[in-house]
């Protein structure tokens, strides 16, 4: 069998500093998440850095925030009582349609967020919350800013979500179960403040800022929800790929945004 993914040396650091030093020793040194994607690439890795001995696989909560460690699996997100009890369980809902249980036991939160995948369901759901990325060198960055800019070679340590009394909804459309979403939408409401996040456009998730603002200012009538959904589909950009055309995505956006708003208002 031809091997595309090759590892020349394997390191299991005991501290994050050690992992960071190794990461920066050579350009192609690579952090390992669950390897779901890495294994499919054609990459020769001088030193693979295994983060699984750093205790980064925990979901914790205190009075103000919930933390999700970078090595937490999607399955752990799905079954976490903490995450099911907050934000209408939006994060478990966003990951539970991603392939099967045995796959979700492999893939990790940190790799997903750090890689800023356009198709990601998890990132879209997270973006509708008050979420921050904690990087070893880069520190605490609001998720939206991190998605917009990216960062230098760094290690994502954890995600922090501020606890608020947030209602939230997640909807995605797929051609078939197990496929990537053609579009995914998350809507959240905290008092009179709304966030409408749309991902898999197929570009990475973004907040529809004007639509979110309008929703917070207006009467929450059927006509207003319609207007907001049209605005969201207008202000964001969409593209075409094998899963759907740009026009189809725009129509879907309108429908899923409407669904999301109605759910958080219910």
């Amino acid at each position, binding site marked *: 069998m031809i091997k595309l993914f090759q590892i020349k040396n394997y390191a299991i650091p005991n501290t994050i500093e050690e992992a960071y030093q190794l990461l920066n020793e050579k350009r192609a040194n690579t952090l390992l998440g669950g390897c779901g994607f890495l294994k499919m690439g054609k990459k020769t*890795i001088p030193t693979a850095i295994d983060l699984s001995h750093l205790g980064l696989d925990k979901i914790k909560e205190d009075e103000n925030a919930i933390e999700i460690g970078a090595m937490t699996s999607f399955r752990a997100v799905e079954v976490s009582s903490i995450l099911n009890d907050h934000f209408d369980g939006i994060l478990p809902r966003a990951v*539970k349609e991603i392939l099967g249980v045995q*796959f979700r036991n492999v893939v990790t939160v940190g790799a997903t967020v750090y890689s800023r995948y356009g198709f990601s369901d998890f990132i879209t759901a997270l973006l509708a919350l008050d979420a921050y990325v904690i990087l070893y060198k880069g520190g605490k960055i609001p998720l939206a800013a991190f998605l917009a800019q990216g960062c230098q070679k760094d290690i994502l340590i954890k995600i922090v979500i501020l606890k608020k009394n947030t209602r939230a909804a997640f909807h995605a459309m797929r051609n078939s179960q*197990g496929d990537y979403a053609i579009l995914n939408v998350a809507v959240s409401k905290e008092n009179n403040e709304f966030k409408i996040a749309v991902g898999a456009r197929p570009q990475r998730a973004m907040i529809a800022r004007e639509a979110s603002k309008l929703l917070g200012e207006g009467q929450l009538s059927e006509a207003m929800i319609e207007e907001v959904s049209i605005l969201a589909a207008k202000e964001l950009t969409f593209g075409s790929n094998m899963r759907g055309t740009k026009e189809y995505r725009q129509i879907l956006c309108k429908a899923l945004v409407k669904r999301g708003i109605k759910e958080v208002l219910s």
Partner: protein
Amino acid sequence: MKINVTVNDEQLEMEVGYDEFLVEALRRYGFNSVKRGCDTGCCGLCTIWINDQPTLSCSSLAVRANNQKITTIEGLQEEATDFAKVLVKEGAEQCGFCSPGFIMTILAMKRELKNPTEEEIIHYLTGNLCRCTGYLGQLRAVKKYMGVV
């Protein structure tokens, strides 16, 4: 690299490559029930348990299994046979290629879900593809086996 693994309740020292996945390593050591299908994480054929959790062996690095507990169908012969009998009775097995991974997921589900609904069963099994049966016979068999009919 040498790793120490408990496979089906037996201690085993395995010599594995850094970039070797468990599907290859386990087969090399004679656990031939573990099959490779798509090799991309999509079909569920390669499902084993790591620390009792159903996991894709095609996507789990063997090195990471050091000091962990692995279970394959070879270690669950009796239960697997019990389920296979129900499967056959429902006419739900054809080529049988999907069976090793499918059965590993079913046996994990049986431990995890008590009185699941049909929807919960289907959701738990979405990671296991079968190209022959059309799933309905399998679903009948699983429901019988889980005692939910």
